[in-house]
């Protein structure tokens, strides 16, 4: 068994941060594996990242067409087995459209695209990307999206909050919640959620753009470190 996790990154037509995610995985000591939407093969990877971008130009609804790609059926089965799946930005939108995560992403409250660094408060350690983090801890990560306002039906929201499915909230550097820190009007400041098992996580911010101090903040490092642990644990199980 290798101790280098193999993490697949899916390229859909219109994916933009696929190369960036592969680069971040390699920079963090993993092995990034490029995957193609139209295939069925996950090439034996230990974890999957659905990257940011504008798959299919965001036409119809963000992520709606990509959620029906051939590879997504394979990824669904992969997730059902408990393997780690991380959706970033458009990847989060795809996971919601695929029904693998609760809620939906709609246009930012400002109706404008926003690119900025934000602080996230970690809400749970019970996921494949936050196992190495402590609830209440904050990390700095960039966002860049036009449709990142997470919303849910009242029943969904009750379940998400009640079952502790919120993984990240937009917050101040010290973890305080305030509308001023909420860049898109997301319900309850929610930036990322998980499934019940915690192996599927989606978030609007971009941890892959937060691993290299030369070009940005470093809040994404710990997420990838946790993802690698989960990937290796799954691989050896």
């Amino acid at each position, binding site marked *: 068994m290798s101790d280098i996790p193999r993490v697949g990154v899916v390229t859909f*037509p*219109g994916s*933009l*941060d696929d*190369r*960036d995610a592969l*680069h*971040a995985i390699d920079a963090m000591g993993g092995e990034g594996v490029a995957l193609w939407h*139209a295939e069925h093969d996950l090439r034996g990877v230990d974890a999957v990242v659905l990257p*940011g*971008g*504008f798959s*299919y*130009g*965001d*036409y119809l609804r963000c992520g709606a067409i990509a959620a029906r790609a051939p590879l997504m059926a394979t990824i669904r089965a992969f997730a059902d087995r408990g393997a780690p799946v991380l959706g970033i930005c458009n990847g989060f939108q795809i996971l919601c459209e695929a029904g693998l995560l609760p809620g939906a992403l709609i246009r930012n409250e400002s109706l*404008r*695209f*926003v*690119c*900025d660094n934000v602080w996230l408060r970690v809400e749970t350690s019970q996921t494949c990307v936050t196992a190495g983090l402590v609830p209440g801890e904050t990390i700095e990560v*960039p966002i*860049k999206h*036009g449709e990142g306002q997470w919303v849910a039906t009242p029943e969904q929201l009750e379940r998400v909050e009640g079952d502790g499915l919120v993984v990240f909230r937009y917050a101040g550097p010290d973890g305080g919640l305030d509308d001023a820190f909420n860049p898109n009007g997301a319900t309850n400041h929610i930036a990322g959620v998980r499934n019940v098992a915690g192996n599927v996580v989606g978030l609007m911010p*971009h941890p*892959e*753009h937060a691993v*290299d101090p*030369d*070009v*940005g903040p470093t809040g994404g490092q710990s997420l990838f470190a946790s993802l690698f642990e989960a990937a290796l644990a799954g691989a050896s199980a």
Partner: protein
Amino acid sequence: MSDPLYRQLGLQDDEHERIVTTLGREPNRAELAMYSVMWSEHCSYKSSKIHLKTLPTEGAAVLVGPGQDAGAVDIGDGDAVVFKMESHSHPSAIEPYQGAATGVGGIVRDIISMGARPVALLDPLMFGPLTEPRNRWLFEGVIAGIGGYGNCIGVPTIGGEIRFAEAHSSNPCVNVMCVGLAKADELVTAQSLTPHVGSFMVLFGAATGRDGIGGVSVLASATLEEGADASRPSVQIGDPFAEKLLIEASLELIREGLLEGLQDLGGAGISCALSESAARAGMGADVDLDVVPLREEDMEPFEILTSESQERMLAIVHPAKLEAVQALCTRWGLRTAVIATLVEGGTLAIRHRGEVVAEVPARSLTDDGPEYDRPIAEPERGDGADPALSPFDGDLGEALRAVLAAPSIASKAWVWRQYDRIVQGNTVAGPESDGAVIRVPNSLKGVVVSSDGKGRFGRLDPYLGAMHAVAESARNVAVTGARPLAITNCLNFGNPERPEVMWQFAESIRGMRDACAGLGTPVTGGNVSFYNESGDSAIDPTPVIGMLGLLPDYRLCVPSAFPGPGLAIYLVGETAAELGGSEFAEAVLGSVTGMPPALDLAKERALIELLVAAAAETVLVSAHDCGDGGVAVALAECAIGLGHGFAVSIPTDLPAHVALFSESASRAVVSVAPLDEEAFRGLADVHAVPVTRIGESGGPRAVIDAAIDIPVSELEGIWSSSIPRLLGEAV
């Protein structure tokens, strides 16, 4: 009686005569349409060519000069930077979102047709005052269009200045610059690939529709008059998703060695791509319009030939590689059509439904267009009063507040927060920096770019205005520690048929020529945008310069803001009594008169050498261009950046307001750690640049002698809230 067809298409009588002579007969409808777009001002540079020829284009680092889709510069280790700037002002004035969006799409295709991956976009923009509702509509629409397109294709938007002036109320200027990276030996140029007789011309990408017909001739090569909204159908509609697929497919086609040529379809559509590709190959082509994928069944040949539908490329493909090309495009979801075959001779023979609808020499479209030496007349200059001579007894703190709130100076964060600045993961410094910095993958090199135009200086003196644009862009690159290498440009002017506009153009070219020669930064290409006027109001003559520089190690990039307290602050260079065309003169005195500051290229060069040397020896902690707004504004911006104040005293014989707000060239505000001061002063001596230690960084306030003492937080508030406030947002 109505005008003959050729005039309706924008051709002049003498141009029509020329076509008749070339063909030996009257051109038919389709042929006229082709000549009208190819010989339009926008495509043929017929009014500007004679002047552009005088620009310096040679340099050790220049790999590809003017005349191709984009210029290319050698940055060592086999790496090449490809860059180009263009305007999309006319479409944007009519439909701001799509006009700006398709401008981004067009310049990106110029870069990919050189075989380079687009790695950065910059958008120099000029609008009328935001107090006018229509200007706000144009401003918000253009920004949304740039973001809507650029964010969706995975190319970071990392810079581009934004200026405001009344003359842009009816004539917004929307320029866009793209930077690409390639291996020098993989560049796609006329020299690097050899097409064969019998090879196919393959159109790939989007289908051809009725959008953008006559865009270059009707829209871009005439002034916008009343009722211009009726030309909205001449504005193209962008599909950034298709563009992203084009980028990936094109680069893969080149990487796999499947092409004998590649050309983007932009202005003048298929006519341009066919004629340029064939002429470049020294061949002709048999063209079949019936196989062009159309959005509407019943399009006429002239419509198919001149449509400017976006997101299309034309590849030249050897028959043996056609199958592989088609398979690759299909994998990316792109349609292909073999629309032509290269043949001996030089004739484009174009068929539609079994008939030859056009038969013209390819070269006559690309090379035989008219060239005008248009009359030039120096206009009368207005009141030459030098604002530096009039006494000023106002409050200097209030003056600083007013200049910081001036929209051209104020923070543009409202704009660039809407741009994806970080995709591709190589953005070392974005729009907040004087020069934006992109690192070159798998190396330590940093490519530094800045775009600058000096419209107000140009109004007072177009020669000096152009010189200042070159010098300021070089300085903006040099303050990061990078050596300026070469420029591209976009030349924004009024109607060239008016002798005074042509005089402004000729003077601007002369200024650009002298400055580029003096600073050793050759011109690698550019774009001319004429007819930026409506009624009697033309824009200020505004050549926008896109400067490219190189940092040997991006980690040594010098930031512009004071990073902490206790640093020695130096004013580098000399300040003279030069308020003509300054922000102070406009925002505080309300007048733009006199002459722009002088520019001594030897001094500018010395400053650049000092900044590059000091950065390389890591003795600079921060460095910021001291130009727009003068030293008071430069200091305020250094403080606002990270919230570290300063206390300085500026020794001078000048009146205080002149010393603080003069926009003398060849200056910078730098901060230096106390331990490095001796080394810094030594370097300044070596380069013969006068430097003055004016004070230290630190504390919460901005203090200049007894004149100014204001909390940095207050200055920050004024500077950052100005544009949102003008847009009516709660701040």
